[in-house]
């Protein structure tokens, strides 16, 4: 085995370790949150899938319905865990993230809500919508809770 191959293998192992570690934390963080959806066709998503959807990297659901994102506003209680777990940042930076995405036309802008109730109502009314609320908030049965799996 060459020396170069050795280094790549070592690098890959270290990256995998990191990812395992992250999944572990996300499992922990996500517990504080509940991801709900309306006619998304999905009940379970992997963390990465969930992150891609919330980071506007996926714009349609498998059922061809457009993805509509609903997020808690920076003033909402779930803002901080959302920013931290989904976006890996602070709530204010989530705004800048979306400012950048919208300004550059990369994504349809999400809707921000000050309360989880307003968010739930929005998701209920919006097919293809996916939102995230505090884990403690009750979720109406009309909505699908999408479980986030590591």
């Amino acid at each position, binding site marked *: 085995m060459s020396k170069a191959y050795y280094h790549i293998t070592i690098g890959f192992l270290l990256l995998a370790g990191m990812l395992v570690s992250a999944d572990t934390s996300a499992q922990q963080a996500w517990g504080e949150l509940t991801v709900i959806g309306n006619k998304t066709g999905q009940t379970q998503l992997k963390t990465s899938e969930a992150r891609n959807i919330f980071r506007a990297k996926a714009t349609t659901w498998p059922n061809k319905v457009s993805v509509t994102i609903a997020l808690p506003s*920076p003033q909402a209680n779930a803002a901080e865990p959302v920013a931290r777990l989904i976006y890996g940042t602070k709530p204010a930076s989530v705004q*800048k993230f979306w*400012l*950048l995405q919208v*300004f550059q036309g990369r994504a349809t*802008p*999400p809707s921000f809500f000050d309360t989880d109730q307003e968010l739930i109502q929005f998701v209920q009314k919006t097919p293809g919508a996916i939102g995230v609320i505090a884990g403690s908030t009750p979720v109406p049965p009309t909505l699908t809770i999408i479980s986030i799996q590591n």
Partner: protein
Amino acid sequence: MRRFYQQISFRIWFPYALVLLILIGFVTINYPNRQARLFRENKERELRELAKTVALGVELSLSTNDFEGLKRTVDFVSGSNDFEFVSILEKDTITKKETVFATFPELPESQVLVRDENKYVYQEFDFTTSEFTGCILIAASREKFDALVWELNRPVYIILPIVFVVGLIVFFFIARQITRPIFALTESAQELGKGKYDISIPGLTKQDEIGELSHAFDFLRQGLIELRQKNQQLTQGLESEVELRTKDLNDALARLENLNKISKFGYYTYFIEEDRWTCSDSVNDIMGFTPARPHTFAGWVEMIVPEDQEVMAAYFKNLIETQERNPVLRDWQILRPIDGQHRWITATTDFVLDAQGNAVSFSGIIQDITDRKLIEEEVSRLSLVAKYTSNLVVITDANRKIIWVNDSFEKLTGYPKEEVIGMSPAMFQFEKTDPETRKYIRECLEQELPINNVEILNRGKYGNEYWLNLNIVPIREESGLLRGYIAVESDISERKTIDIALRDSELRMRQTMDASLDAIIIMDLEGVIRFWNQPATNIFGFTKEDAIGVRLSELIIPDQYKQAHERGMAHYRNTGEGPVLNKTIEITGLRKGNIEFPIDISIVPIDQDGVRLFCAFIRDITVRKQQEQIREEAQQALLRNEEELRKMNETLEQKVLENTKKNLDLSRMIVDQEKLATVGEISAGIAHDLNTPLSSIKAGAESVSYSLETLIGQQLSQADPELLSVAIVLAKPIVKEIYLGGLQLRQESQRMESYLRSLQEASGLSDELRSQMADKLVRCRIAEEDSDSIRRILTSRDPIAVLNLIQQIQTIRTLLDSIRISVDRASKVIRDVRSFIKKDVQSSQQRILLRDNISVVLNIFHYELRRDVTLDFSVDPDHIIMGYEVKLFQLWSNLIKNALDAMDEETDKQLVIRSEKTAAGVSVSVENTGPEIPAAIISQIFRKFFTTKHHKSGTGLGLSIVKNVADEHGATISVQSANRRTAFTITFPSVDA
């Protein structure tokens, strides 16, 4: 052809075109700029509004989380094509550093942060939220801006040139419209100018200014038509006139040619380059050309007489070279080839020049002046006659004003020509001129008649009176018009004087015969008395009436001589010989009362009107006999005087010879050569100086002798003792003026005559006797102031006799005095010579007066000095030296002789002898103007036998002697010779007081 810009249409069109060009240019430049500026301002404003909108959208989305609005805003902005990119820049509030947050469309950060103002137009708008501070930056392409501006202005750039061109064309046609009538009128005027007066003038129907101009042209056309008609009439008249004049001119030319022939005029032309000349027929006639003769310059020269041919050739060659326009004309004598005659011609010359000023030919007039030449020669000869004739020639104009006189006239009258020209010949007449003669001359001249042989007394400039024999001829033109007069006058003064003298003589003879002391008796061959004068009456006691017609032998001849007298008369009648004729014989006469007394009788045969007569001059010699003794004594005295004079002369000559001998001896003692030279020169001077007074003595002695003979023989013998005593008393011892000039004598005689008239004692004298008395008184130099003497003479028994005696006595005395003066002069010469040549016997020096000492030598050299030497003798008479007189003579004579020899060949001879008292003594300088003595020989000139006069008589001892004598006197001698002057200065020691 008039150029376009010179046409009036151009001048109308051009201002419009210029204004339009300026206007279009102004709009073309300003309007697009303004549009571009407004466009850019508007676009920038729009960009700014977009930036502002974006900023508000961002601000709002971040504040309200409403990113939908932001999306709409972005969609709205992205829908616009007016910008290139829009960026959100985040600003660090602390560091103020900008970073690119987002750019739409996406671009590298550097492209956003680095502002390219040339490429983009930027606008930005700031915004601030709680989490974000930044700005919206929007950029638009500047190229697109410019493209939009061009698009905006493109119509302007297309339309304005079209407007400009259209405007030019429109204005051009307007201008053409204005000028077309003018062109039409111009063409009409040109047609009128060409003489086409039947054209129609355009624009006559117009009511504007062009219409008025057309009417004016039409008026002009009508006027020109009238003028042409008049001109045609005038031309016809002029042609007729020219025809007549041409005919007259041809006639005049023909007449001129005839006149030329008559006047012997003709013209010629000589072509220099071609050496050919042409001439008129009259020149051919004058010159006598044969047809075969070449008309060249050489042919011309050959016609001149041989002696003038070279002169003629040189004359014309000089003319051609100098091209003198007005050369001095001269006359030429020609030899006519056709007949060999000599003729005189004169020719004028004038050059014809080409464009470069070179003479191509000359032409002129030739005239035959042979007749004039002949007349001139005749006139010249006559002029010479008139000029040099001894007769006076006067020419006057018709008004009898003098216009010319000859030399003889000037000489006689004393007036130069210049003073008498314009004057009347009557100016020479004066109070003595005979009034009848003057009247006769005047009347003849007034009637323009000639005057022949009229004698007139005139007076000259200096009062000289002269008699002229006048011959005056009027000068007339051929028409008879009087031109003036020629007077030929001969000086007959001498003849008139003789005539008058003869007339007076006859009168005087009669008077003299009567007044004579001698009895004058004229008898015929028979011895009959025909004339008996008053003295004859006085002497013989018979009156004229007693004597006339009586036989001489019967009246006054004593008995003892009567027979001899009759025999002599008979002998003469028979043989024509008379032993006693023409002799003075002394016999006795018979006075009335039979008193016999001694007489002198001289019988002279005379012819009167072909009749032989005898004239007997008889003088009573009773008194003369009584004076015989006196006469004898006077003669003895005269003989003694002559003997004395002769002896004196002999003595003088002997003394000269002796002194010369002494001088020779003296000189020989010094040096033979020097002595001989000096003696020779001294002798020559002495001989001359003695000769003059001796000649005077001789002449004076002869005159005295003659006067004594006259006095004694003719006057004393008959003089009354009383008259003689009066004469002796009144005769002056010496009269300086014994011979008087004629003029002085006349003037003084006239004064004396006037004086005599005033004297009572002379009142009884006749005019003739008074005139005689006056003449004698003047000759005796008795002036009016000597009134006592004059009265005494007048009261004497015979004043004339007294005056004659006085005159003779005075003459003798004066002559004797002149003899005495001459003797004194000769004695002085002898004295000086003696002083000069005497032996030097002085044993010691004596006081010598310098001036006297030098004067003796100068006297010796008097003859040489007097000839041509200017003497400046400035020696103080008081200067005295101590010395030997004779040796000093030797010193001065050598210096003076040297000076004269030095100046021998000079024209300006000056001898200067000066004395001066100096501290060292008395200096005497002898200076001459002879050649300078070369400096090289000055030191040698005092050496013995040194001379520069080898060719003369120089012995080389003169200056040596001077030096010795000067040394002997303790004197110094110096020589200065410079500037054509040589001076010998001798300084003698001072004489102690």
